[in-house]
């Protein structure tokens, strides 16, 4: 993509000069205040007010300036070296999970879009494990970059829309915006965010200590005051830095993104979808908002275009962005909104609904090694039977002929065409999981549930899921729910409410964890979703009996008013 290299480099350098001036200003004032305090102290207590003035003279000012220059150079140098890693830790972004379909798709898209830039950058995809809808990018001087999306975004956008959002973020990387915002955030943003979080924590947790022990209260007040001071000073200087970052860079990135993908409509749709959801306000610190495609906080200022708004706001109005993109495609915003809504409705209709009963599935009686007839088994149950070979004798449960052309009632498994997938799966060998079902004592089967790898028992339909992957499952909406499940979910929740108090403490499960063989406890999934599940006390595994996983997903989706 032809962007002049020198243009970008010059832009980078002026921006860093501005940052440097702000930081010098910060240290200059700090040095002035400290210097004045020291000199005033000296004047009052040591000289006892006999000679000189308590204020700093010209030499004092010059020394302060020197100190400020040195300190600023060290600060900027330090920030530039590892800004990206530190901001990333503050945002809590994880690496992608290579086993997860959605994560893999995201990584593929990042890879593809990077090709459009001529492959100039080394872009690592990362994920913020949050239900919010947002995306961000960061970059350092050497061309390493991070492009991140929230779990919510991966679940709610389709491939084209995700590609458009990624292109927007890659555009930031290509134009050098990301580098500037990353440095800007790391200069004061991290301190402000840390102080903000600490102050918040102290306010929430401190109150108890306060009343219990009167003695420590003074120290806490001093501590809080200092924290507040740090917060307001860093926030003020961070505000100065934000001035220098124009809100127009978002419009520019939109335009470059369209040049990368040639698809303005998808970007416009993605912006609309993100703007309608929760963008992470309260979870993503406001000091990092410049990194994101849309401001995590919904600020009235962002939607206005006065002189002050242009100066203070970090993001242009959403409707303006959508309008520009819509005009590129010779359509209008109303059309795009209409399309998004009707597409969502069509997707909702197309959700795959599991069948109501298993009764019409074919079943077989099988003769085991001891020549005893066992069964009836469904096809998925037959898949995990270790002793079933193509030579095993089988008959249909219900008396039909196993092979219509031959017309036999009894035959070997290799004669039954419907059983072929069993042996196919055994040949592949990838499907049988390493875990054993705690209730049936049979091997679990690895499955893909809305893109997340889970382990299911084909006999009792229980599932073993890693707790850390539950957010993704509850967010994604591939599978629909049949009426039986909806009724069951409502009933379970109602029952749970009646027993909420006597079952508040989890009790030991009758079995051990299939993963670490440690004790499991049976209790409510959370206090909001009153479904009893078995959680391992040691590792992160959760065992769901039949339907429990689907019930929880149903309850979460149907209590969710933000999405």
């Amino acid at each position: 993509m032809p962007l002049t290299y020198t243009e970008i480099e010059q832009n980078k350098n002026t921006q860093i000069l501005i940052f440097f001036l702000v930081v010098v200003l910060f240290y200059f004032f700090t040095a002035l205040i400290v210097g004045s305090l020291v000199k005033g102290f000296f004047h009052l207590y040591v000289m006892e007010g006999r000679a000189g003035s308590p204020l700093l003279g010209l030499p004092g000012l010059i020394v302060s300036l020197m100190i400020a220059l040195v300190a600023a150079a060290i600060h900027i140098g330090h920030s530039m070296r590892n800004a990206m890693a530190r901001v990333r830790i503050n945002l809590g972004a994880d690496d992608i999970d290579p086993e997860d379909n959605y994560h893999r798709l995201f990584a593929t898209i990042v890879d593809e879009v990077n090709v459009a830039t001529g492959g100039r950058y080394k872009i690592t995809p990362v994920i913020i494990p949050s239900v919010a809808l947002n995306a961000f990018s960061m970059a350092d001087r050497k061309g390493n970059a991070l492009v991140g999306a929230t779990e919510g975004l991966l679940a709610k956008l389709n491939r084209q829309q995700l590609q458009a959002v990624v292109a927007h973020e890659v555009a930031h990387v290509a134009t050098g915006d990301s580098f500037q915002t990353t440095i800007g955030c790391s200069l004061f943003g991290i301190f402000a965010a840390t102080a903000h979080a600490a102050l918040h924590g102290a306010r929430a947790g401190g109150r108890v200590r306060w009343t219990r022990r009167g003695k420590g209260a003074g120290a806490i007040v001093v501590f809080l005051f200092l924290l507040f001071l740090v917060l307001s000073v860093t926030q003020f200087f961070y505000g100065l830095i934000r001035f220098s970052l124009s809100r127009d860079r978002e419009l520019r990135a939109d335009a470059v993104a369209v040049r990368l993908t040639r698809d303005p409509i998808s970007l416009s749709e993605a912006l609309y979808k993100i703007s309608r959801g929760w963008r992470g306000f309260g979870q993503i610190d406001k000091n990092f908002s410049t990194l994101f495609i849309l401001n995590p906080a919904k600020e009235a200022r962002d939607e206005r275009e006065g002189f002050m708004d242009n100066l203070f706001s970090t993001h242009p109005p959403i409707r303006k962005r959508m309008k520009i993109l819509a005009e590129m495609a010779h359509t209008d915003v109303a059309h795009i909104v209409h399309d998004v809504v009707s597409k969502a409705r069509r997707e909702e209709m197309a959700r795959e609904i599991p069948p109501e009963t298993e009764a019409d599935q074919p079943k077989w009686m099988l003769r085991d090694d001891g020549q005893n007839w066992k069964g009836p088994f469904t096809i998925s149950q037959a898949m995990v039977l270790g002793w079933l070979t193509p030579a095993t004798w089988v008959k249909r449960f219900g008396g039909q002929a196993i092979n219509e052309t031959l017309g036999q009632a009894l035959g070997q498994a290799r004669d039954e065409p419907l059983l072929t997938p069993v042996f196919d799966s055994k040949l592949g060998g990838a499907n049988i999981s390493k875990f054993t079902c705690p209730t049936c004592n049979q091997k679990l089967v690895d499955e893909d549930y809305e893109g997340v790898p889970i382990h299911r028992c084909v006999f009792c339909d229980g599932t073993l899921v890693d707790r850390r992957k539950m957010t993704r499952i509850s967010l994604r909406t591939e599978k629909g729910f049949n009426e039986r499940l909806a009724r069951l979910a409502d009933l379970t929740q109602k029952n749970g409410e009646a027993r909420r108090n006597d079952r508040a403490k989890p009790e030991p499960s009758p079995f051990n964890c299939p993963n670490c063989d440690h004790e499991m406890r049976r209790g409510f999934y959370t206090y909001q979703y009153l479904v009893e599940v078995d959680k391992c006390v040691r590792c992160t595994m959760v065992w769901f009996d039949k339907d429990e996983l689907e019930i929880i997903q149903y309850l979460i989706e149907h209590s969710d008013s933000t999405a």
Partner: protein
Amino acid sequence: MIAIIILVILGAIVVAFIGVFNRFAHLRNEVKNAWAGIEVQLRRRHDLIPNLVETAKGYLKHEQTTLENVIKARQQAIDVSGIKDKMQAENMLTQSLRSLFAVAENYPNLKADKTMMSLQDELTSTENKVSFSRNNYNDWVTKLNRYIDSFPPNIVANFFHYEKADLFEIEDAAVREVPKVKF
């Protein structure tokens, strides 16, 4: 006095010439680089196809001609050189792959095959990368061609016999066709 003026003018011309010459060097290298980017993706596609055909062979016993077309188109795409011929060969390959996937739609077992699925995913991704790198290449080519057409760079271009580069275009009947509206 006149000598000084002439010297100044000559100096300005030399400076301008150096500027134009360097700009040409930059643009031509970027075009070359972008073309190399396309070739990387095309080679990736060529490498994927034998596996794809091998996997599909077991299921598509009655569709030998479709498979043979794919193999033939791939071989041709590898053999040709020159941007224009390459473009044509690659478009042929795209067409033959498309008809292979259309045929595969009728074979549920093939569609459910894990290797086939992952190959198809990877091929889709590679196709996207081809189209993205093509965009990148075309952007640079347009920039170079516009520069060659403009004055005074066209003088320099004539002097050094710099030629316009070819755009990498899609020759796809389905994409090119203007939709017909009937009343």
